[in-house]
C-alpha cells in the first residue's frame, strides 16, 4: 500500500508545478502570511490577487526563499527550492532596483543567464544569442545598447521580462509586471504570457486590476494574509470569494497579529 501511495504521489508531482504546504511568514515576528496551503498545476497562468498589504509579494518572496519561512515548506516540481533554482524565473517589482545603475539593457538581460553559468565563467557567444532572442521576444531589440535609465517604464518592465526569459525556467514569478506600463507594453506582456503558457511554462503573476483577471489568467490565488481561495478562474473568481478577500481588512487575523506584536517587549 505504502509503495503504491508513493507511486501515486510521484505521478502527481510531474503535473504540480508549485506546492506550498502550511506556510507561515513573519516579519519581525509579526505574521504576514498564515498557513498557506496551495497547489498550482503546471502550464497555467495564475493571477495572485488581493488588497494592499495582503502579502502577495511576500508570498512570492517566500516561495523564492528571499524571506525566511516561520513554518511550512515550498516544493517546486516536487523538490525543495534550493534544488530547483534553475527551474525558477523571477521578475521583481520595477522599483526594486536603481535604474541609474551603469548597465545597458543587454547587460541586464545577460544576468538572466548567470544562474546557469555559475562561478567564474563569463557569458559568451551562446549567452549573447539567448539575450538577442529574448530581447526580440519582448520587442526591445533596438534598445539593446541603451543605458537602462533612458527607457520608459514599459520598456524597463520589458527588460526585466527579457531577463527572466533568459533564465529559461519552468516556473515564473512576476511581481506586478503590469504596474505603471503603457497600453502597448500591457498587450505585449499579455501576448508573452500566452506564449509562455503554450510552451507549458507555469507563470504566477501578482496582479492589481481585477477587471482583467478573467481575460489574462487560468487560475487565481485570492489572498488576504491567509489564503481565501485558489483554483480555476471560472469557479474561484466569484463575487463571494472577492468579498471575502477585500471585504474589511481588520479580520481576526489582523487582531491576532497586532496582539502578538503588542506582547513583545517594547524597545
Amino acid at each position: 500500500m505504502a509503495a503504491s501511495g508513493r507511486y501515486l504521489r510521484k505521478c502527481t508531482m510531474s503535473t504540480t508545478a508549485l506546492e506550498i504546504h502550511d506556510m507561515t511568514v513573519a516579519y519581525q515576528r509579526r505574521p504576514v502570511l498564515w498557513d498557506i496551503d496551495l497547489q498550482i498545476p503546471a502550464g497555467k497562468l495564475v493571477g495572485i490577487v488581493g488588497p494592499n498589504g495582503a502579502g502577495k509579494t511576500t508570498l512570492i518572496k517566500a516561495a523564492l526563499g528571499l524571506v525566511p519561512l516561520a513554518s511550512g515548506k515550498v516544493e517546486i516540481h516536487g523538490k525543495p527550492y534550493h534544488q530547483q533554482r534553475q527551474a525558477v524565473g523571477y521578475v521583481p517589482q520595477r522599483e526594486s532596483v536603481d535604474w541609474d545603475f551603469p548597465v545597458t539593457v543587454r547587460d541586464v538581460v545577460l544576468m538572466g543567464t548567470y544562474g546557469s553559468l555559475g562561478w567564474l565563467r563569463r557569458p559568451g557567444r551562446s549567452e549573447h544569442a539567448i539575450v538577442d532572442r529574448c530581447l526580440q521576444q519582448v520587442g526591445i531589440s533596438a534598445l539593446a545598447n541603451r543605458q537602462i535609465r533612458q527607457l520608459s517604464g514599459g520598456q524597463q518592465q520589458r527588460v526585466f521580462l527579457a531577463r527572466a526569459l533568459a533564465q529559461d525556467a519552468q516556473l515564473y514569478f512576476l511581481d506586478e509586471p503590469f504596474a505603471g506600463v503603457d497600453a502597448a507594453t500591457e498587450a505585449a506582456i499579455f501576448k508573452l504570457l500566452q506564449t509562455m503558457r503554450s510552451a507549458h511554462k507555469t507563470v504566477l503573476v501578482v496582479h492589481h486590476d481585477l477587471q482583467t483577471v478573467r481575460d489574462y489568467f487560468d487560475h487565481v490565488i485570492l489572498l488576504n494574509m491567509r489564503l481565501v481561495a485558489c483554483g480555476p478562474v471560472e469557479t474561484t473568481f466569484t463575487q463571494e470569494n472577492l468579498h471575502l478577500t477585500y471585504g474589511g481588512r481588520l479580520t481576526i487575523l489582523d487582531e491576532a497579529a497586532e496582539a502578538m506584536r503588542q506582547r513583545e517587549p517594547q524597545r
Partner: protein
Amino acid sequence: MMGTLFFDSLNLSQKVMLGTALLGGISGVIGSFAVLRGRSLVGDMLAHAALPGICLAFLLWGTRDLWALSLGALTSGLLAIATVTWLVRWTRTKEDAAIGIVLSTFFGVGVVLLSVIQKPHIGGNKAGLDSYLFGEPANMLSDDLVLLTVVAGVILSLVFFFFKEFQLVCFDTDFAQSQGWPTLKIDLTLMAALTVVTIVGLPIVGVILMAAMLILPAATARLWTNRLQVLLVLAGLCGMLAAVGGTQLGRGLPAGAAIVLTAAGLFVLSLVLAPQRGVVARLRSEWQLRGRIAREHLLRSLYELNEPYLPARQQLPLQSLQDYRHWSALPKLLDAAEADAFVERQDKTVRLTSLGLKRAAELTTAHRLWEMYLMQHAGIAPDHVDRDADDVEHLLPAALLVELEQQLEQEGRLPNTITSVPDSPHQLEGPSESSTP
C-alpha cells in the same frame, strides 16, 4: 624578501609615486562598488573609526609598526560596522543617523587617545601617529609598499574574476539570491575589500579625507560612461591621477588634502565637460532644441500666414510676420531658413519655397494633431492648448504622430485644414508662379 629588496632600491619620490598610484587605483575601483551599492558613507565611517584602533595599538605595542597599527585600525573599523548594524537592527535609528553617530563617537575617542599619546611622558614618539589624521605619503616605507602591492593584487584579481557576481549583487540582490548566489557572502567580500583599502589608505591620505578617495573617482567616472566595466577602469585611472597628481602638485601641503582637491578638480572638470551628463553637453542640447523650436515656429507661422492663399505661395510682407507672434531673433531665423532653402526673401517680403511649404505643412499638421489630441483626450481647455502644444510637439516621436493621426482620422476628427494640405507642393509650382506679380 624580494619585494622589499626591489622597493628598497627606489628613492623616496619613486616610492611615493608608486604607493599613491596603487592606492588611488584600488580605492577608485572598490569605491565604485561602494558608491553603486549606496555605501559611500561606510568608507567614511571606517576611516574615522580606525583612529581609536590605531592609537590603542600604539599604546599597547608602543611602536609605530605598520602591521600592528593596521590590525588596530581593522579591529575598530569592524567594531564600528557592527555597532551601526546593531543600532539599525535593534533600535529605530535610521542608517545614515547611525553612521553619523558611530563615526563621530569613534573619531572623538581617537582624538582623545591621540592627545594622550602626544603627552611627553607617554613616549613622545608621536611623529608617526598624527600623520594618520591628514596623511603623509612622504613617510612611505618599503613595508608600506609591500602591503599596498599585495592588497592591490588581491583586490584587482577579485574584481577581475568575480566581476559578474559583484555586478549582479550590486544591481539586484534579490534576483541574484533567487538564482542561488550566496549574496551575503559576495556582499561581505565587497565590504571586506572596502575595509582593507580604507585601512591601507589611512597613512597616505589620512582618516579625515579617505572617504573622498573612495567616492570622488567613482562619481567622476560615472559621468563619462554608462557601463560598469568602463566605469571601474576609469575610476581606477582617475584615482591614480588624483593621488599622484595631488602628491606631486601639493608638496608642502597636507597630502590628503592635496590629493582630495585634485580628485575634486577632476570631478568638477568632468561635471562641465562630460558627454551627455556634463553641463556643457546639456546646455548645448538645450540650445539646439531651442533653436529647432524657433525654426519650426517660423515655418509654421509662415504656413499659417500663407494659408488663405493656398495652393499659392504668397509673398508675405515681413511686417506681417513680425506682428504675427513674438520673435526673439527674427532676422537670424530668416537667415537660417534661407540657408536651408525653405524661404526666399525679396525687399521687405518673404515667401516659402516649395521645399519650405512641404516642411511647414508637415510641422503644422503635427502641431494641429497634437492640439486636437490634447483637446479631445486630455481634457485641456482649448485656450491653453496652443502654448502646451508648442512646448511638447517638438519632442513627439514620429510613431506617436502616426498613431495620433490614425486615431483622429478614425474618429472623423482630422481637421479639414490638414487634409487640404497638398501632398506634394511640387504640383503647385505652375499656378503659384503665375500668381506672383
